[in-house]
């Protein structure tokens, strides 16, 4: 029987998801044996023509990582959707927009202005910025269009499953691959990771106090981080309660608070809003009645960059989507 065809593709990506696949180590060789990899731009003969030549649905599954930021990426994922039976949004960027999604606080022009004109090391008196078409006398050079707004994969094409994480950890990747190969997949639209929030598996959960209350918000460099205590108990913002588990709490074990890369659990439409609401619910609970206006203001001002903190990985997927363009 013919091996199932598998494709890997990357959009506005950093390559970490590709590295995550390589981190399967020996297991990767087993996977490569069991499937027929037909597309992997970084590794194989990637041509749009080859993908176009395939029949619709001939690719069993396409794993697509990276957010959609350029015209070229949009075209390619639409092509792959047509040729694939299943599409899996691989990694935080494809799932929710990821870190590149922070670009949605700005526009193409403001980004170009900074990168090509304003940075102190650039010498660009003519104010040159990259162009979609550049004539060079002997011919023409083209670049793909850079959009104003970063989109998630499912805002561009229908997506069947999501593998969350920045990047998805090796065990979740193997589980997903095995599920696909054996046909034991959950209902479409599922996130292929555990269903509960991070606190469920956090090594610090047992020692949490009965009632959490943040007296004063502390930024991670303002205190010596206690490696045993819940971060929220220490006053350090941790998005664990608002984030799906499955990562193995790798950041927490390195004694750093969670920043939400796995996205929310099912049923939450906006991770950022939930994160904000969750923190707001436990601010200043102890001695609340004795707090003056000043005290309240001071407490809340301790929360710096709420938008960038709560929407660190999920801005394009959120209800906000992006900052309003002037």
């Amino acid at each position, binding site marked *: 029987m013919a091996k199932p065809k598998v494709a890997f593709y990357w959009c506005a990506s950093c390559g970490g998801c590709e590295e995550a696949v390589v981190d399967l180590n020996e297991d990767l060789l087993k996977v490569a044996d069991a499937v027929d990899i037909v597309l992997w731009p970084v590794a194989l003969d990637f041509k749009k023509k080859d993908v176009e030549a395939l029949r619709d649905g001939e690719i069993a599954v396409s794993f697509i990582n990276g957010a959609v930021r350029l015209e070229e990426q949009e075209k390619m994922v639409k092509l792959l959707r047509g040729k694939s039976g299943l599409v899996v949004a691989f990694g935080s960027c494809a799932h929710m927009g990821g870190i590149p999604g922070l670009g949605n606080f700005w526009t193409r022009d403001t980004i170009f202005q900074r990168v090509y004109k304003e940075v102190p090391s650039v010498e660009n008196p003519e104010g040159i910025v990259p162009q979609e078409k550049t004539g060079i006398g002997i011919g023409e050079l083209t670049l793909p269009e850079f959009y104003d707004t970063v989109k998630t994969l499912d805002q561009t094409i229908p997506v069947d499953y999501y593998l969350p994480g920045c990047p998805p950890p090796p065990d979740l990747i193997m589980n997903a691959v095995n599920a696909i190969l054996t046909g034991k997949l959950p209902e479409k639209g599922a996130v292929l990771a555990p269903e509960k929030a991070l606190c*469920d598996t956090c090594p610090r959960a047992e020692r949490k106090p009965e009632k959490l209350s943040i007296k004063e918000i502390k930024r991670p460099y303002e205190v010596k981080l206690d490696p045993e205590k819940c971060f929220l108990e220490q006053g350090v913002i941790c998005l664990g309660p608002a984030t799906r588990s499955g990562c193995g709490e790798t950041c927490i074990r390195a004694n750093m608070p969670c920043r939400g890369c796995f996205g929310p659990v099912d049923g939450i439409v906006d991770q950022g809003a*939930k994160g904000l609401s969750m923190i707001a619910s436990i601010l200043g609970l102890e001695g609340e009645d004795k707090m003056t206006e000043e005290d309240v203001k001071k407490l809340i001002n301790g929360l710096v960059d709420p938008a960038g903190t709560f929407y660190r990985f999920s801005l394009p997927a959120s209800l906000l989507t992006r900052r309003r363009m002037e």
Partner: protein
Amino acid sequence: MTMRGQPIRVSELDTDFKREVIAREADCDITACFSCATCTAGCPIYEVYPQHDPRKIARMVNLGMRERALSSPYIWYCSDCWICEQRCPQNVKFSSVWDVLKDIAAKEGYPPPVSINEDMCSGCGICVASCPYAAIELRIQNGKRLAHLVTALCRGCGVCGAACPSAIISVNLFEDEQLFSQIEAPVA
């Protein structure tokens, strides 16, 4: 209990009920009510859920329809906007009436509209911290800490539902879908 549409059986009425309510909270002399419905006309919750009707509940209390009043899920939805008591020509502090009814209902085991899906609970404890009535506690089950609702203490305020980062606390009639449709309706 007299159900909707049925004639009221006087034998089933508890004429002490109104006094019981007044005894809890002197400000709500519910017997002063003459059913003008000014309260209902101003109630924003009534706009969305007509069964949350201050005038109707006041009448039930005054008639002594104890069980019917206490078992109604709609006694839990007062938003504390105080429009009813500001406008009442008889100075009935109706917001306090809701509080008293909720209090009695909770103590007598009528279920508040809040439920926690313990199977999906991650034990984060945010709800425990945010509940103003200390009605949620973390109980250990199979080595995991899970949130558990103490219904006798719950007043159905819904703060837990808003705060829960896993969306596993249901506050009946205040689910996301319902809220979204309430937002969409006036702006459509």
